[in-house]
Every structure is written in structure tokens, then in C-alpha cells.
């Protein structure tokens, strides 16, 4: 099936990213946008654009009827959902396909499966992917929680089955904390997701977040593009990502990759996806699978020399991968800084007009951003405004390159996290690769205390 025109059901830098891949492949693009994004870069660059609603995402970027109408009107062949918004909505994927469009992403049943964290873990356990020890499913009672916690040993984590974004997630460091954690997690789960089912797992106290990028065609071939280390998070939001992880060697990467690709082949998975793991003391524990392109995909592209979005489009059109795992090589090191429109100390959002935007340049520097001088960052959406990604022959060179390019970059008129990223790059612990998923929170606290 030939894809001649793609509707991009997203906004910001990822809409621009998808547009660029399409344009380089000779595929026409349709930008759909809210009234708040009428002057956005991807809207200006797209071959066609359709305004689909007012600023609130619920009435525009989450408005399935408007997006499908726009696809019908413009004669699009396929829809790329990007990340966030409708990208992991199985009903949307089904409706896209039911209306005769190609959904550039996984099969709806796999989106649904991975959207339910318990079902996802069940599937992965069955398929031989390593998991963190914990309850086999939702907990029937506090008593069951006590039993499982005693088995896997404290500290433990109680999590909403329908959860995400850190809501409905509580730690119990010992048995005395369990009952309260159980109650609060259930209450939050009910409030946030309308479902108070919770499960329990061993709480890893100093893990890294390491994830594996996979890609599958519709002919049964699955490959992986190595790992990303995304341990640098604040409130479960990633800030800095690396490929590869400072703690993994080729043998560990290959072993995990083999387990995962075998599992996804059995599952009959399609298109791109990412399996997220906690890693500690040489052990991986699957936590969830993202059935979409991820924000941090560029670091993988830069070490592997592939264009993941083009691969998504090729696979969605029914093409074969055309290469095997052994042809995927990893060269050098890549790091991404997510620059957001936030105060770098308080993280208060700072939307508004960008008076001057100046991107850094030179060897090994990539900027994915929809900013331009004079652009007003709207207050309605995510605060991510730019991804600064560098590649270097070594991790040390990549860090040096980030320091110099962060110093060259200018986003004036609004507050951004550029100074925070510069401070991270200058930190000896970060430079040594010596961090866990808790490091960044502590670093920010130290920075704010130190003044």
C-alpha cells in the first residue's frame, strides 16, 4: 500500500519531526491544529493544514471526529499520531483503520494490551521478558498486599493498575507504612482513573531507567536499536537521555535485545515501540511498554544512523525491514537535553513570546524544535520547546559538545531550563555516568539549597 499523504495528528516539535521525514520521502503532509497553533512552524511548513478546534486539547488534538474528518476531507492515506495525545489510544487506532486510513503505529490490540499495565506485565512474563518481582495481578485485599510484600521484601511500591504519570503510586518502606500506602494509592487511583485496582512490586531503591527501542515490520521481522538510559527524571518526567547507557556493555545489550525481539515476534507486534526497564545490579525489570514513537528517539537515531520515523512510514506501508539485527551498528554516543519553557529552579511554566531564538550549530549538533524568533509558546500544552541532541565519538566528547552548544543556544523572552542542563553537564557525577533515577531530584534540591 502506497502512502502518498500523511495527516500528522500532533503539534510542536514532533509534528515538525514527522513532517520533515515525510517531506524527505516525497510524502505530502496535512497539519491539523487548534486555533492556538495557527502560526506554528509545522502548520506553516505542511503541504496542507486544517484547523480542527479551539485551544483545549480535548476539543482539538484529542478530538477524534475532527481529526478523521480532516483526514477524509484532505484525502490523507495515513495518520501519524506522534507521542502523547491520541498516540496510545487503542480506540483511536481502531477508528483510523475502520475508516480506511493507515495507522502509523502498532496494532490496536497491542496498544490496548500495553495500556493496561497488568496485562502488559502478564504478557511479558509469559513471553520470557524479565520483570520486577511483585503481585501477579491486582491485589484482592490489604492482606494479600502484606503477604506479597513479605515475599519480595521491603521497600515495596503500590501502584494503580490503570495508572501513569506517577499518580496512584505509593512507597511503603516497611510493614508499618503498608496500610497507609495501600489506602492512599487506591484513593488516588479511583480519583485519577476511576478505578481503584492496585498492584504491588518490589521497590528498587537505586535503579536506572533503561529502555530498548524496537521496530517490527508486518512480515514477522523484529529488530532492536539498542538502549537509551533515561534515568535523569524529575517527577517521572525525563530531562536528559543517553544512547547508550553508561553502565551497559555490548554483551548485556545483545542479551536483552535477543529476549525482547523474540518476545515481540511471538506477539506479532508491528511498527515502533519501546520497552522500559528498571536496571539495578545488572538485572533488568520490565516496567511498561510504550506503543509509539518516543520523545527521546533521536539519540537512538544518532548512534545507529537510521531515521526511525522514515522506518515507521516504510513499515506502515507494508515494506519489509530489509536488514537484519547484525546490520545495526552502534557508533559513538548521543545525549539529548529536553529544553522546556519552565523556570529552571521552580519549574513553573513560562509560556509567552520568544523574542530571540538562536539554535546552536556545528559538527554533531542536532536541534529538533518548532521555535522561531517571534513565536509565542501557547500556555495550553506541554512545555517542551526544543530537544538539543548531540553526537560524539565518546560520551566525554558528547558532554563537551553539549556544554558548548547549550552555551550557544538562545531562547529569549521566556524562562527555559537551559541553565539547569548546563549545570547537569558540568556536574562530576553526571560526567562519571554515576546516577540513578533519584539523582536528578537530589541534584535539583542541592542546586536550589546551594543558591
Amino acid at each position, binding site marked *: 500500500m502506497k502512502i502518498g499523504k500523511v495527516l500528522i495528528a500532533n503539534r510542536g516539535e514532533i509534528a515538525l519531526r514527522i513532517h520533515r521525514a515525510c517531506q524527505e520521502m516525497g510524502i505530502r503532509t496535512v497539519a491539523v491544529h487548534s486555533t492556538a497553533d495557527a502560526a506554528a512552524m509545522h502548520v506553516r511548513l505542511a503541504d*496542507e493544514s486544517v484547523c*480542527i478546534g479551539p485551544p483545549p486539547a480535548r476539543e482539538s488534538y484529542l478530538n477524534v471526529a475532527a481529526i478523521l474528518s480532516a483526514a477524509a*476531507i484532505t484525502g490523507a492515506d495515513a495518520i501519524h499520531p506522534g507521542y502523547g495525545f491520541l498516540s496510545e489510544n487503542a480506540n483511536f487506532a481502531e477508528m483510523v483503520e475502520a475508516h480506511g486510513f493507515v495507522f502509523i503505529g502498532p496494532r490496536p490490540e497491542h496498544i490496548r494490551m500495553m495500556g493496561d499495565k497488568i496485562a502488559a506485565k502478564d504478557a511479558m512474563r509469559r513471553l520470557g521478558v524479565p520483570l520486577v518481582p511483585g503481585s501477579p495481578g491486582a491485589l484482592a485485599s490489604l492482606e494479600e498486599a502484606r503477604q506479597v510484600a513479605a515475599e519480595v521484601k521491603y521497600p515495596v511500591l503500590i501502584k494503580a493498575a490503570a495508572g501513569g504519570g506517577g499518580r496512584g503510586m505509593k512507597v511503603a518502606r516497611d510493614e508499618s507504612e503498608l496500610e497507609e500506602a495501600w489506602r492512599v494509592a487506591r484513593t488516588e487511583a479511583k480519583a485519577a482513573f476511576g478505578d481503584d485496582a492496585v498492584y504491588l512490586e518490589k521497590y528498587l531503591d537505586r535503579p536506572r531507567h533503561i529502555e530498548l527501542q524496537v521496530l517490527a515490520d508486518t512480515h514477522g521481522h523484529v529488530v532492536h536499536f539498542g538502549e537509551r538510559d533515561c534515568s535523569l527524571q524529575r517527577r517521572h518526567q525525563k530531562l536528559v537521555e543517553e544512547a547508550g547507557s553508561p553502565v551497559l556493555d555490548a554483551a548485556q545489550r545483545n542479551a536483552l535485545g535477543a529476549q525482547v525481539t523474540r518476545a515481540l515476534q511471538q506477539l506479532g507486534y508491528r511498527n515502533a515501540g519501546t520497552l522500559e526497564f528498571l536496571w539495578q545490579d545488572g538485572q533488568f525489570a520490565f516496567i511498561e511498554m510504550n506503543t509509539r514513537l518516543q520523545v527521546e528517539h533521536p539519540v537512538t537515531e544518532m548512534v545507529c544512523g537510521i531515521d526511525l520515523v522514515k522506518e515507521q512510514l516504510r513499515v506502515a506501508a507494508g515494506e519489509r525491514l530489509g536488514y537484519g539485527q547484525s546490520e545495526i551498528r552502534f557508533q559513538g554516543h548521543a545525549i539529548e537535553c529536553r529544553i522546556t519553557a519552565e523556570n529552571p529552579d521552580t519549574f513553573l511554566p513560562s509560556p509567552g513570546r520568544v523574542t530571540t531564538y538562536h539554535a546552536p550549530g556545528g559538527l554533531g549538533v542536532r536541534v529538533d524544535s518548532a521555535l522561531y524568533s517571534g513565536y509565542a509558546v501557547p500556555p495550553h500544552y506541554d512545555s517542551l520547546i526544543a530537544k538539543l541532541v548531540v553526537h560524539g565519538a565518546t560520551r566525554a566528547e558528547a558532554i563537551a559538545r553539549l556544554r558548548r552548544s547549550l552555551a550557544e543556544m538562545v531562547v529569549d523572552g521566556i524562562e527555559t531550563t537551559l541553565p539547569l542542563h548546563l549545570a547537569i553537564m558540568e556536574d562530576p557525577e553526571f560526567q562519571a555516568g554515576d546516577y540513578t533515577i533519584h539523582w536528578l531530584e537530589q541534584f535539583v534540591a542541592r542546586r536550589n539549597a546551594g543558591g
Partner: protein
Amino acid sequence: MSNGIQFDPEAIRALAQILKDTDLTEIELVEKDSRIRVARTLPPAPAMQMAWPAGLPQAAPAPAAPAAMASPAPAAEESIDLAKHPGLVASPMVGVAYLAPEPGQPPFVALGSRVTQGQTLLLVEAMKTFNQIKAPRAGTVTRILIETGTPVEYGEPLMIVE
């Protein structure tokens, strides 16, 4: 040559209609010494251009882009004025406009019709649902800015009732 140029007004009108129906911008017919050329300038996309700084890239004119072409005749400036017109009826959704309830039926309203508040002015079809677009106030229909079959985007001017 001093006889003046002979021409067939009906042929020109027919070509103009073809031009309009096919979304072409130019048709030229040449036969021996005769040449007929009809052309029209597509209006640029409306209001959203205004916020864009002079230097930044402009989307290539997209002749196949229905959204950019929905407002037929009026120049860009006029369409901006219309968007701010106090009598504006704008599309509440993305879809396709229909002026009549069914093919072959007369339109809901015509230019100059007096309408009462809540009276159906046209339909916008989205996802196979036909949505009635009703008059927000009583008044006279002074502009009809779309035709049956015109794709419309959110917020696009449909009619002026004043």
C-alpha cells in the same frame, strides 16, 4: 484586427466554471490563431498568516488543499474582516458544508433571506453526521461564503447574518 476581437462569452463562462469545479488556476486553449486563457488567483489562507514574521517559511501554495481554498472569491484582507464581522456564523467543526437538506432540494436559506434565531442555515457533515448550523440571531443573510460540498475547517466563516 480593426474589427475588434471576436469572442464567445458562453465559452468563457463555461471555462470559468470548469476552472472553479476542478480547482485549476488556469486554462488555456489555443487553436490556430485563436487563444482563450482563463485564470483565477486563489486567495491565500486566511488570518493565521498574520502572526507569522516576515522572514519565516511560508507553506507552498497547495492547490489541492481544500482547507486553504474554502473561502472562494474574496481577497485575503476581506476574509480577515469577515472573521471579525459581528454577524459572522463560523463553522463549529471540521467537515463538509451543505446548503440544502438533500441533493435537488432548495437551499435552507438564500442571499437576502430573513431568518429567525435558531433557524437552520446549512449543514456541516462530519463523520457521516449532518450537523445543523443554526442562526445565532435573527436577521438577514448578507453573505454566503461557502457552497455545497465545500470542506470547512474549525472557525471558518460560513455566512453573515446581520
